[in-house]
């Protein structure tokens, strides 16, 4: 990866009626980055992607990709962007093969010239190439959509929630495909509501309510988590969480799988003291120091972090 700025986003805002979808977003993305936009539905990810792919206009602010303006130079940009929308948008009544040929011809590309780019993905689809897109499973539709977005060899690939509703294993495999594509020099923007996918990106923006809360490498975001974090565990988990929620010594308590992640109101409090106090009520309790993950950071930056 080099340090050349490839995408420059400057104070972009977008609203739909009373809903402020994007609120003064500014951000730079480097060439050949695998960049993740992480946030729940309604964070503004799709609106930002549609502006960058020249499909909608911002209310204010502007963005350039490789120096081209997303409003003025949209014709130029469309040739060089591959976009996979969140909703499956291929032709349901065309076969796998027909969809791929159609998208190649729309962009004036030859399937055989760029086949090397999609080969490793397409080989899973090859046995079904005569099948209509409507009859494919979810995982195969996703692979076909990715192939169609890539077949004109774009410089920029924009993927809107490609892994939503996809099982944990297939999601992992999809990310391996993206890493491989990055090796071909393509810059990739990808959005996801799954916090655990952040660690697979070069850099991420955590988004909520139309704003970017932080932009950094996933490693730096977790390393900068400001509090000491502990994992409390008991088989009586719902009793434990109720107890932690009313304890004034606890700043935050959130369920994380089989444990509850907690931070302390006063970090000088010895954790062993808290543990032995709480053990009077929950005898099998254990509390251990733990490392923050992206979801801890997201919760911390949100408005509901400290107990009211």
């Amino acid at each position, binding site marked *: 990866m080099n340090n050349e700025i490839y995408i420059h986003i400057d104070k972009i805002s977008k609203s739909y009626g009373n809903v402020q979808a994007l609120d003064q977003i500014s951000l730079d993305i480097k060439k050949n980055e695998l960049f993740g936009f992480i946030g729940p*539905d*309604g964070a503004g990810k799709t609106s930002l992607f549609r502006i960058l792919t020249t499909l909608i206009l911002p209310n204010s602010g502007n963005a350039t990709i490789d120096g081209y303006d997303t409003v003025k130079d949209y014709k130029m940009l469309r040739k060089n962007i591959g976009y996979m929308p969140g909703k499956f948008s291929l032709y349901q009544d065309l076969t796998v093969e027909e969809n791929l040929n159609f998208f190649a011809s729309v962009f004036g590309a030859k399937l055989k010239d760029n086949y090397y780019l999609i080969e490793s993905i397409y080989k899973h689809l090859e046995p079904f190439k005569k099948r209509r897109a409507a009859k494919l499973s*979810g995982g195969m539709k996703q692979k076909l959509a990715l192939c169609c977005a890539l077949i004109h060899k774009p410089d920029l690939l924009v993927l809107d929630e490609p892994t*939503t*509703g996809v099982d*944990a*294993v297939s999601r992992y495999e999809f990310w391996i495909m993206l890493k491989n594509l990055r090796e071909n020099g393509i810059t990739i923007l990808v959005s996801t509501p799954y916090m655990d996918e952040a660690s697979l990106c070069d850099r991420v923006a955590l988004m909520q309510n139309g704003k970017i809360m932080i932009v950094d490498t996933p490693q730096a975001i977790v390393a900068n988590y400001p509090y000491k974090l502990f994992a409390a565990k008991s088989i009586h988990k719902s009793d434990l969480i109720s107890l932690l929620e009313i304890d004034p010594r606890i700043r935050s308590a959130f369920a994380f799988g*089989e444990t509850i992640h907690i931070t302390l109101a006063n970090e000088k409090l010895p954790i062993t003291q808290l543990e032995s106090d709480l053990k009077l009520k929950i005898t099998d309790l254990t509390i251990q120091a733990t490392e923050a993950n992206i979801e801890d950071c997201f919760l911390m930056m949100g408005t509901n972090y400290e107990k009211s």
Partner: protein
Amino acid sequence: MKSHNKVIEVENLVKRFGDFTANDNLTFDVYEGEVFGFLGANGAGKTTAMRILCGLSRPTSGKILVAGWDAATHPEDIKKNIGYMSQKFSLYEDMTVKENIRFYGGIYGLSRNEVKTKITEMIEKVGIGGLENKLIRELPIGWKQKLAFAVAIFHDPKIVFLDEPTGGVDPFTRRQFWSMIYDAAKSGITVFVTTHYMDEAEYCDRVSIMDEGKIVALDTPENLKKMYGVSTMNDVFIKIVRPELI
């Protein structure tokens, strides 16, 4: 386990579409007040099984009792005794909060007074006081999903089926949603839930994992992790579905 009363009994459930076997001899029970996680890879057959349990589709063979009713012969009686919500469809977007609640109240055959009491109760529970007259499409997704869940258990069903209820929901609301699930289970409603968030699998009392039409694992998260010698449900899932990845 919350109780020994079985509310779902599935014995040798088979569902075929032409030559394709979507559900291959499923056998399992779900108990009253249990939070039962129904996991599996995409295409493993979860949706097919869930549609049969909800009375929306008939089994090819097997004996399936849901809330005491036979899924092959009494699907309409099953529908009266269950609630259902999914991420994809929950409430009517172009109706207000109040209109949705009234509409579902009507469908479930509640009286006008019952609906009134329920509206007050729910608005308090979901914490959306003042928004009764807003259109659903104007609500943030988290509230929408919490409200949809409240509506799905509105008529005190024996079982509520939740199909990826927390997809796309922010981490804070996701946790609130699960606390609503626990409350429902405590009140005796059995919760049958699918999810792709593996941390949520840990919140279930028991979890079944489907692969290629079969149930390949069924136990408490604790026991499954022990059995597969791993520390998270995510790793259990990977070990079962794609062992070559570990």
